[in-house]
């Protein structure tokens, strides 16, 4: 019964992914309509993704190395901080970067006092800066996993042979980096190619429009559905190519365990290396903390003066996040059960990972095209947004649930079967209590991503149906910065708070 429901759920997800894509491809009417603007968007998407991924990784390597070989008070906090951007709403980070690098921000203030001209955060440099803000921490965590995978015995052997830090790098660390970095590069490249909210807020114009943003513009400003569909097809091809490429690499999973401890090292105790590591960690923390800290600190003062529309939007976002979390965990639970319990369940796993390559705007355009003949898509803006959030969060939920389900079945599958435990009784008495941790994590992650999402809602959103991230973007766009910062504070409390609550709930009282 359960596994069959899971197969059905997987088929529905596959359909929900494919139908909008078919609608987009069908509406795109050939490649002849591509003009110079579209090529420009494709070119910008590609090169900014390459640059963003490269810079993120180059900055991440010294930070990861420092974290790998230094044990200090607060190290766990730093690793936790590096995980935070993953669930931080994009628009909040953008607001923070504007507060630091914007026209009246800290950096320009300093430059001005030195008599140097202002730098602008709007344009390609802002897009790349924001991408590095989000992906440098991700890269650091992933590379740190690689560092922790170097066996301690190997490092002890190196110490007994009198390796210097340079020798260790050449013999142990460089080979490790060469094996993990390509996969990490590809993951970040993929993330950056589907960038929408960052490009929407900081990019635009001829030199800084991603394909996703171009879809939005064709849709929203020109209401040219054919062009939107054509751009959607370009984005689709891009995503599919990257997904195919990714089959050749072992993609790292984002939430590896065992990062809580530095490995004993004997080669890096010189004061110079200590200083180097301290600087790397300090700069990374400052880069992550200062922008968001500025926003939140300023936001506190305006929170109680916010208009009711903002609070309503926050309420809407909260409800949507809860619905998305419930749906995603239910679907992921059933799919994980089907992957583990049915023979040839591999395709279900594949459906789950495919949605990583799916782009929200392409899905949104496709759904719009499908809904247009039968209903007013704008009136369905919120359900459609929840739906896209569910699809996009599903791969992460599956990555948490499938291994846990496998362990549960290996440990207690036969016992449950021998007692005739099945269906709802099994779910209630065995599965939910045993899988509390991963379910809580999946629910928290989905809720946080959904609450902070600024994607499809921008396509469909109307003022009376706006979510909090959309309202925040609109406040920014009309230069009401105090209110924007207060809204950002609410949004951060909402998304990080939901993640914390669910994740905490999953960990409590685990036997």
């Amino acid at each position, binding site marked *: 019964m359960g596994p069959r429901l899971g197969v059905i759920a997987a088929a529905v997800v596959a359909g929900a992914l494919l139908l909008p894509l078919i609608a987009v491809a069908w509406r795109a009417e050939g490649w002849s309509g591509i003009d110079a603007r579209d090529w420009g968007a494709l070119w910008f998407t590609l090169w900014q993704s390459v640059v963003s991924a490269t810079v993120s990784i180059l900055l991440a390597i010294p930070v990861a190395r420092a974290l790998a070989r230094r044990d200090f008070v607060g190290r766990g906090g730093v690793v936790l901080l590096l995980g935070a951007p993953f669930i931080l709403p994009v628009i909040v980070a953008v607001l923070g970067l504007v507060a630091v690098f914007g026209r009246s921000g800290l950096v320009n203030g300093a430059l001005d006092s030195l008599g140097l001209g202002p730098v602008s955060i709007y344009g390609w440099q802002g897009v790349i800066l924001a991408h590095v803000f989000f992906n440098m921490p991700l890269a650091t965590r992933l590379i740190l996993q690689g560092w922790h995978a170097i066996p301690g015995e190997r490092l002890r052997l190196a110490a007994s042979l009198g390796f210097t830090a340079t020798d260790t790098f050449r013999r142990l660390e460089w080979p490790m980096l060469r094996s993990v970095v390509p996969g990490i590069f590809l993951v970040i490249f993929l993330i950056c190619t589907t960038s929408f909210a960052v490009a929407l807020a900081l990019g635009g114009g001829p030199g800084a429009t991603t394909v996703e943003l171009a879809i939005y513009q064709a849709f929203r400003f020109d209401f040219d559905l054919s062009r939107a569909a054509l751009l959607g097809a370009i984005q689709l091809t891009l995503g599919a190519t990257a997904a195919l490429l990714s089959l050749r690499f072992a993609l790292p999973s984002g939430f590896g365990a065992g990062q809580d401890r530095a490995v004993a090292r004997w080669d890096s105790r010189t004061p110079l290396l200590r200083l180097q590591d301290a600087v790397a960690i300090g700069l990374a923390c400052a880069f992550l903390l200062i922008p968001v800290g500025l926003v939140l600190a300023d936001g506190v003062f305006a929170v109680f003066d916010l208009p009711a529309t903002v609070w309503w939007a926050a309420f809407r976002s909260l409800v949507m996040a809860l619905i998305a979390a419930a749906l995603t965990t239910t679907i992921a639970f059933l799919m994980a059960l089907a992957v583990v319990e049915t023979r040839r369940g591999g395709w279900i796993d594949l459906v789950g990972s495919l949605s990583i390559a799916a782009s929200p705007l392409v899905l949104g355009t496709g759904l719009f095209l499908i809904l247009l003949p039968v209903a007013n898509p704008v009136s369905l803006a919120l359900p459609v947004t929840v739906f896209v959030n569910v699809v996009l969060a599903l791969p992460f939920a599956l990555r948490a649930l499938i291994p846990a389900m496998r362990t549960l079945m290996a*440990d*207690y599958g*036969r*016992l449950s*079967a*021998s*007692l*005739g*435990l*099945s269906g*709802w*009784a*099994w779910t*209630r*008495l*065995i599965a939910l*209590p*045993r899988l509390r941790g991963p379910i809580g994590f999946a629910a928290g992650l989905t809720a946080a991503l959904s609450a902070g999402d600024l994607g499809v809602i921008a396509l469909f959103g109307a003022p009376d149906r706006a979510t909090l991230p959309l309202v925040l973007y609109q406040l920014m766009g009309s230069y009401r910065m105090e209110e924007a910062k207060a809204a950002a504070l609410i949004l951060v409390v909402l998304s990080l708070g939901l993640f914390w609550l669910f994740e905490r709930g999953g960990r409590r009282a*685990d*036997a």
Partner: protein
Amino acid sequence: MLTLEDIILAQGDFTLRAEVDLPSGGITALMGASGSGKSTLLAAIAGFLPVASGRMTIAGVDVTDLPPGDRPLSILFQDQNLFPHLTIAQNVGLGLRPDLRLTSEQGTARDAVLNKVGLAGLGGRRPAEVSGGQQSRAALARALLRGRPWLLLDEPFSALGPALRREMLTLLRDTARDEGQSVLMVTHAPEDAIAVADRTILISDGALEPPMATVDLFADPTPALRAYLG
């Protein structure tokens, strides 16, 4: 009577033929070297492993294709017999109703069985809060409570020390006799078979030897048993 007719088990290169009539009542030991397939056979009888061919019946009813929970038997594994997040009482109660919605009579019956195996007053604890021997008693209590005609045990109590294990085997023999349950027990320890088993079946060279009275078998070992004992 538990009957295996022309049963063939296949797992990769490994095959096992089984053709045997096991009379009801008493304890039957299933002995053999590691890798001889004794646990595999038990898993097949319990319904975890489909047979390649053949038929098995219990009391004349064909059970070959029944799901594990529907077979007229209970099974005790080497370990993982209890769910760690449920209390001892809940773990035992699962034997009466898998959804744990027990009536008050069922609750009384559960407490009586807990008493019988010496777990009175421990029902509210989790498995991690009682000793290994008490965990085994809880698993045994659940099997008794289910009241299925057959009880299968896969290397039972092997995680316990020798004294505790002997104590548990004795408890098993006495309670099974009182409840009229037939027991089929996989073991690799001759002393366990000698201690409690009325009959012993030896597995060697991919097939089962006919069941023999344990006393007779060890008084005059067959060549296969001599090879096993070394």
